[in-house]
């Protein structure tokens, strides 16, 4: 075994040396797989409005979905492929990390937070959205600030950063909040709508999207200063520098060319094809304006 291994190593080293001298980048990882199979697998979500969802015509749509489409175009161009099949696999928040880590999914762009724990398993592209956790309350609830929550029931989606922050705030300030865990963002809203909780804590953009889809949007408002900033980014397999460069390049390019802002307006300021046409109406936050000037892949 040992001589064989040494042989292989020698070949590998020679190959590397050759590549280095020629100066060409040999394909590996995701790009190699895409070239060999002629297909790319995207992870999709069905109800992460307006990032990635099925619209009223039952077609995939969304801000992040379109970013992924730009990546697909770029990969096709870079690899000089005549035809590139796009396969879509539906993911849930629980399945997305394992399926990217085990290489079933090549690229996942939806509403996934880039954080250090996850970086153990996967890599993240440049950030394309910045959110902060806030509160959704009924306008007549009398709740204006975080401190108004003392002793009340508050709902938060299980396993999210919002849950983590709420537990810490509750502990530090001795607020005595009863934390109710919801399994997803729709149930989260249902819990506050049916009066089980006085407030729902989530990423601000998700709250605005819930209000837009509510039966009576005028009843609801978002309050409380944003608690913790988070960066949404595309997820890809760990340590694949070549593919990450492509995805990063696409996002930075869109930010530079003004296409990013156009896409932002399309999904956050204009009507989208959900529930017969709703408008989320979420003006671009200052953090995002900063991001466009200075694209980066830092978790916040």
């Amino acid at each position: 075994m040992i001589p064989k291994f040494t042989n292989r190593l020698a070949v590998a080293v020679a190959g590397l040396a050759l590549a280095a001298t020629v100066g060409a980048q040999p394909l590996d990882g995701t790009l190699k797989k895409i070239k060999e199979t002629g297909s790319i697998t995207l992870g999709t979500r069905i109800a992460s409005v307006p990032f990635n969802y099925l619209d009223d015509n039952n077609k995939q749509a969304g801000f992040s979905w379109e970013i992924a489409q730009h990546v697909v175009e770029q990969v096709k161009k870079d690899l000089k492929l005549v035809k590139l099949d796009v396969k879509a696999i539906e993911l849930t928040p629980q399945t997305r990390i394992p399926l990217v880590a085990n290489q079933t999914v090549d690229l996942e762009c939806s509403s996934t937070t880039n954080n250090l724990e996850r970086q153990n398993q996967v890599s993240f592209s440049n950030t394309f959205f910045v959110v902060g956790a806030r509160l959704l309350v009924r306008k007549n609830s009398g709740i204006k600030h975080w401190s108004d929550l003392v002793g009340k029931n508050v709902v938060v989606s299980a396993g999210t950063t919002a849950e983590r922050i709420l537990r810490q705030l509750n502990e530090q300030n001795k607020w005595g909040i009863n934390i109710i865990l919801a399994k997803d963002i729709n149930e989260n809203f249902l819990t506050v709508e049916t009066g089980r909780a006085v407030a729902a804590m989530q990423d601000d953009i998700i709250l605005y999207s819930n209000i837009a889809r509510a039966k009576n949007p005028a009843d609801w408002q978002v309050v409380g200063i944003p608690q913790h900033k988070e960066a949404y980014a595309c997820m890809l397999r760990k340590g694949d520098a070549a593919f990450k460069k492509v995805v990063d390049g696409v996002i930075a390019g869109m930010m530079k060319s003004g296409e990013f802002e156009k896409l932002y307006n399309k999904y956050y300021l204009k009507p989208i094809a959900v529930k017969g046409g709703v408008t989320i109406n979420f003006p671009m936050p200052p953090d995002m304006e900063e991001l466009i000037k200075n694209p980066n892949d830092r978790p916040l």
Partner: protein
Amino acid sequence: MQYSWDWFVFFKPSVTGDGPYGLMLLRGLGWTILLSLLAWILAFGIALAAGVARTLPGRLPRFAAATYVHCFRNVPLLVQLFLWYFVVPELLPVSWGNAIKQMNPTTNQFLTVLVGLTLYTAAKAAEQVRAGIDSLPVSQKQAAMALGLGTAAAYRHVILPQALRIVIPPMTSDFLNVFKNSAVALTIGLMELTGQTRQLSEFSAHPFEAFIAATLVYMLITYGVIVLMRQIELRTRVPGLLGSR
């Protein structure tokens, strides 16, 4: 596959500041066991009553028990739980509904799952009881009656002792299913074993370790149940009846 394994994750402090991740699993295990055992005890009682009722001569108890069994056995547990948690409080008078919704959330979730899981399990187990009773020859009941026993006494002394012994093996499956079905509690926010496993996997980004650990724990629990039921089966054997040598 590119996955960084870390089996020590269970000893690392949780990002929520609630102690190590392993403790999260233990807390979840506590809820799973408490919920499942209580649900099984209650379900067994209801199943006995409903199963017997389905074999009684009277039309009313037969009809009532059949309606109950059909409604609860034929609707998915997840749907039932959703109805109990989100719909039922809205159908009650407003003050009752509000009283339910303003309860301590954990108590409320626990009681809701307990009701849902018990009624679902009992409906299935009632069918086992009925099948056990139906499997006895009619002559058993006739002989009991001929000896002067009333319906109640015939069931108590002749029919049920035989029927219940017969249904121990299928009942074992139902008992196992309670533990596995109790995982639906996570859909309304009660963090039992599966719920805590998902939390662990989200917070630590070590999903495989978390779910492998949960699988082993579930296997241990179910194996324990199998051993227990086997013991009960052996101890209650009657010479000359089914299953004895």
